[in-house]
């Protein structure tokens, strides 16, 4: 066990899986000598050579399509999209093909590929570089959608994704790459579809994933100082999602806040609320609160960007509204 960054944990997972399985192949823009726009593929060209680490032309549809073809022929491609925003150029490959080929082929072939890509805002990269598009993928049957929040999960879930027989959209987050945490050495897998209880508590459930999971934890720690004992659930994956863990928590706490980085309308947060009311309606003491990004294309100017993103402050304020008798700091 050692302290590592989220970025290093991803790198370790790729390296270990490439050593373990010769079929694992990396495809992406600037992933070779440049080691990826966010340096996740550091050292991999040097270790595995350009037979297995391919710098691709700027053609996202070709990256995804090539990964699909290679996966059908028995390789296990891991494609890097420079950001989720550019994955939009490959949506036909992802939605019409990766997600459906196994079904349309009557189960005769699997499509075991991973598309890794960072999303999220807050870095002054504006409208076409800062989006959180989780729902676009989570909506589609046939895709697994994984969104780790911690370095340990980044490693364990990426290894599990590479070994999965299904296409996996692996959502990283720009704001998490430099975050640090304990990462188990060697063979460490986190099963896809099992949420984590990041902090146990009794008064309130806060649900997040990816960047909003640590945000929820920060809010929970501040609320604790003010006498509110929040439980934090990190979903870890959106499809499959662990609704039972969420429902069990809400049955205990009777209150919930759902926090997401993307836009509010029709986002995964709405799905979480619907599942809570399906599975725990009788236990609720208050309407479930939702916190999300402002419904605008991400602006460049810092003065605008700052007010467009959800924050721990928003969570603390929502908790105070739900539990007015116990005032938080």
């Amino acid at each position, binding site marked *: 066990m050692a302290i590592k960054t989220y970025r290093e944990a991803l790198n370790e997972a790729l390296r270990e899986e490439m050593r373990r399985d010769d079929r694992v192949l990396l495809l992406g*823009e*600037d992933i*070779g*000598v*440049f*080691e990826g*726009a966010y340096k996740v593929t550091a050292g991999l060209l040097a270790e595995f050579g350009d037979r297995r680490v391919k*710098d691709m*032309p*700027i*053609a*996202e*549809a*070709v990256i995804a399509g090539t990964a699909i073809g290679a996966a059908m022929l028995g390789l296990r491609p891991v494609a890097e999209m420079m950001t989720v*925003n*550019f994955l*939009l*150029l490959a949506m036909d490959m992802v939605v019409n093909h990766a997600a459906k080929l196994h079904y349309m082929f009557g189960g005769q072939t699997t499509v075991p590929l991973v598309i890794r890509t960072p999303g999220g805002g807050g870095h*002054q*990269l*504006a*409208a*076409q*570089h800062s989006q959180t598009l989780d729902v676009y993928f989570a909506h589609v049957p046939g895709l697994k959608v994984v969104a780790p929040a911690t370095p340990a999960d980044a490693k364990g879930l990426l290894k599990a994704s590479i070994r999965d027989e299904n296409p996996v959209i692996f959502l990283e987050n720009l704001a998490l790459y430099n975050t640090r945490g304990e990462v188990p050495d060697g063979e460490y897998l986190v099963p896809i579809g099992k949420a984590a209880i990041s902090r146990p508590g009794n008064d309130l459930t806060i649900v997040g994933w990816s960047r909003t999971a640590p945000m929820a934890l920060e809010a929970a720690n501040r609320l604790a100082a003010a006498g509110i004992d929040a439980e934090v659930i990190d979903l870890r994956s959106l499809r499959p999602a662990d609704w039972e863990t969420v429902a069990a928590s809400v049955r205990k706490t009777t209150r919930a806040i759902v926090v997401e980085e993307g836009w509010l309308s029709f986002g995964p947060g709405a799905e979480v609320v619907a599942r809570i009311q399906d599975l725990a309606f009788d236990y609720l003491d208050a309407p479930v609160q939702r916190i999300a990004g*402002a*419904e*605008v*294309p991400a*602006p*460049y*100017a*810092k*003065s*605008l960007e*700052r*007010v*467009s993103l959800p924050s721990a402050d928003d969570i603390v304020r929502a908790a105070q509204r739900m539990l007015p008798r116990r005032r938080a700091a």
Partner: protein
Amino acid sequence: MGSMTEPAAVKTRRTPRPLDVDLGGAELRAICETMVLSRALDERMWLLNRQGRAHFTISCQGHEAAQVGTAAALRRGEDITLPYYRDLGVVLWMGMTPREVMLSFFARADDPNSGGRQMPNHWGHAGLRIISGSSPVGTQIPHAAGVALAAKIRHEPTVTAVYFGEGTTSEGDFHEGLNFAAIHRLPVIFVCENNGYAISVPRHKQMATATVAERAAAYGMPGIAVDGTDVLAVYRVMRRAVDRARSGQGPTLIDTRVHRFTPHSSDDDDRVYRPPEEVESARQQDPVEKFRRTLVQHDLLTTAQDHELRERVAAIVEDAVVFAEQSPLPAAADLTRHVFAESGRR
């Protein structure tokens, strides 16, 4: 303007070859001034970024001749440009002011490009017929085909020029856009600023062909490769392409060979993928310096004019920086402005 030195050829001159362009001395000096200004503004942007006064920049340095040489063959206020993020020289020539450039760079409320919403260098100015650029590369190419189609349908004499790098020609949008434009003989010119790199990826990993120009044959349009460090060579090629487009003969692909003097952007360190000597030797072909030398050799730029030009440019840059940096940021209350059209219809 640290890279500018006195032209070495002033003293030992021979009779120079005639320039062979339909431009007078004043126009040639204006082209030179726009190139010098592009370079000076760009150098200042890097400085401001490194001083922590601005978040991001991406550079035109090394591309100035390709940019100003092509733009100079267009009609201001009538022709339409779809520049990409390096095209400071294009937008300055088409009429954007240095103050406007700096307002965008500092993301100020009065930035005419986007009111501080879009990234710097993603130019868009309706009054100047400059169409807003995008971050996903190459999307401007089909847009340009559509703009040219509209001009043709409306019987407007407008020519459209669209700009992009060679790495961008790997995207489907490039191939699909050129194909469509050629089928309908649209009045559009595709200008590739071919600097040999797409961030770190060298040209030979983007295409198996030696040039971008030769791809034009596959779509049925002329494809012309030109030395993009020679502004007049670029101008001549563009001039023919513009005449062709305006007279209804259809599109042209121009492949300008240029060098990128800087890292990809202020977020990049290019030392990991190219040796510094490569950039140093490219600087021997500095397009700005080369053109100043040409004008001096042809007695089109006297020492006094040259001096005056540099002083003017330095003052313009200083004024633009001071003006823009002092101007207000967009107000948080305006966050949702422009998500939808305010009037609902046009």
